[in-house]
């Protein structure tokens, strides 16, 4: 594992950047544990103070130190991404394995539902949902709901993989030796499916955090919870730009860009690394 990281660091520029970015994000998130301020409290520090060495991100109009606030925000956003990714992976694996292995009518029905979810514009439905929960949508529920919408793409990928695995000899051996379909799926096919799952997890996290930002900005989530999205929401509520408090918007934007770029570059370089074509070239001379 460590050699993999060392190799990637040495040779892949994207990975280096991703590593640095994510290290920053991660440290910020971890720092939230030792934060001297409660993120819900307001007017604890002088308001509208521009960034300085003691207050790296400045403070906002509600009297909160933005640095510590963003630490919580980053932690929450990462958690949300992770939960969504897990929920949608589980569904995607289940649907993909079943659909690919069983085939026939089950396959057609599942894929039809799958494709419907792919085409459906998720945002209007999410808006409808959050509107009806009237701002009582806490982070965990939002993450789970996003997970319920984020599986179709990967389910199809997994299904394609299973279809090709089905023709291989070891599948038939398993079936002929009396293994139940469930056992065959889980023990034989699942390990092949894992690389896809892993590769798409990061993508899914990106997607989820992106949606959270959108919903929070519209004021549809629980705005007392610090996330990147709610930071922007509050900045907008207090007309930060007009009042010249640019750092209130600047902090979440910069953090968001670093987070997204970091995740994406990680995803991109890992993808190329595990791609079987480059793998062949990597096998030592």
């Amino acid at each position, binding site marked *: 594992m460590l050699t993999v990281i060392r*190799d990637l660091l040495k040779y892949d520029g994207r990975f280096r950047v991703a590593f640095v970015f994510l290290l920053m994000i991660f440290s910020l998130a971890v720092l939230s544990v030792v934060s001297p301020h409660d993120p819900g409290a307001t007017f604890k520090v002088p308001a509208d103070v521009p960034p300085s060495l003691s207050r790296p991100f400045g403070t906002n109009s509600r009297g909160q130190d933005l640095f510590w606030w963003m630490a919580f925000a980053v932690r929450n956003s990462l958690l949300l991404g992770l939960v969504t990714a897990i929920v949608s992976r589980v569904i995607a694996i289940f649907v993909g394995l079943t659909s690919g292995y069983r085939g026939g009518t089950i396959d057609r029905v599942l894929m039809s539902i799958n494709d419907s979810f792919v085409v459906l514009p998720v945002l209007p439905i999410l808006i409808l949902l959050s509107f009806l929960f009237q701002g009582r949508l806490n982070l965990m529920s939002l993450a789970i709901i996003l997970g319920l919408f984020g599986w179709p793409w990967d389910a199809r990928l997994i299904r394609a993989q299973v279809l090709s695995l089905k023709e291989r000899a070891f599948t038939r051996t398993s079936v002929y030796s009396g293994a139940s379909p469930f056992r065959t799926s889980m023990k034989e096919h699942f390990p092949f499916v894992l690389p896809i799952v892993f590769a798409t997890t990061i993508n899914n996290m990106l997607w989820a955090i992106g949606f959270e930002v959108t919903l929070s900005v519209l004021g549809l989530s629980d705005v007392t919870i610090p996330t990147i999205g709610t930071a922007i929401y509050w900045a907008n509520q207090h007309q930060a730009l007009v009042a010249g408090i640019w750092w209130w918007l600047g902090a979440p934007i910069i953090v968001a860009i670093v987070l997204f770029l970091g995740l994406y570059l990680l995803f991109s370089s890992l993808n190329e690394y595990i791609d079987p074509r480059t793998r062949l*070239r*990597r096998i030592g*001379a």
Partner: protein
Amino acid sequence: MTLLQVEDLRAYYRTEVYGISRSVRAVDGVSLVLNHNEIYGIAGESSCGKTTLIKVISGTIKPPLRVESGSVRYNFKAFDVDMLNIDEDDLRLNVRWKEISYVMQGSMSVLNPVRKIIRTFEDIVKTHQGLPDKKLFLEHTRTHVRTLGLPADVLNLYPHQLSGGMRQRVAIALATVFHPSLIIADEPTTALDVVVQRGVLHMLKAIQEQSANTVLLVTHDLAVHANVADRVGIMYAGRIVEEAPTRIIFNEPRHPYTQHLIQSLPVIGDKSPKASLSGAPPSLANPPSGCRFHPRCPMAMEICLTETPEMIRLTPQHRVACHLMTGARA
């Protein structure tokens, strides 16, 4: 005069990724000569370097493939070409398809799936000759295709509407539109059933007889060579190990590898068990020292491990690269 002279050609693939560099020595010292008006077959197992050899001969050298040393020279009817130093546009306009055409391995997918066959013909003719008279062109193409035994309405179809064998024959028809001096056919019969194989080989032979040009036929299938080739060159691990007229290769093989290949051909009535060679074809990235065949050769001597055997001319037409031959000159 000869059509093609290849002298001590070396072409390697160099890759470098994640700090690991590899050099695959696909063609490692090949010399051969092609005459006009003959069918020359190259036989060898997979990954012995035959496709790379063809790529260099036909001038399709793209990184990571690089020619390290050697020469490839052509003598066409009207002009000479030094393949390794030719200008790219010159190559494209004057040599490709007009003098050298290449029927690739797996011709199932050599045709553009979104264009009708006739359009592919158009593309080729337009590039090399221009298309001043469309009606004349259509007539010509139809005749050409019919001469080769294909129905004329194949031209109006899309590739996916044809069977594999048909597509192969269309590929050959495309390759012969300008009656080139050299037709290179890479595994033209692989993945086809025997009946279709016969049709394809028939077509190739007919073309060669008609135009009196040269066909370079590359395949691992010795039966094909026995049927069609005038001379055969056996390739192993990036080098030619034996070359002779077809009859001699089959009746008097000298190199242990050739001998094994011939021996393992099934003969009707012969029920003796066939031994297989131990080991596997060597990795071209890390070939064995000395004679490449020595790890699997039943008659390997001490010298075979250290010194690479030179090509020795046993008779004016028969060449072998094997230490066993030293002392057995004609």
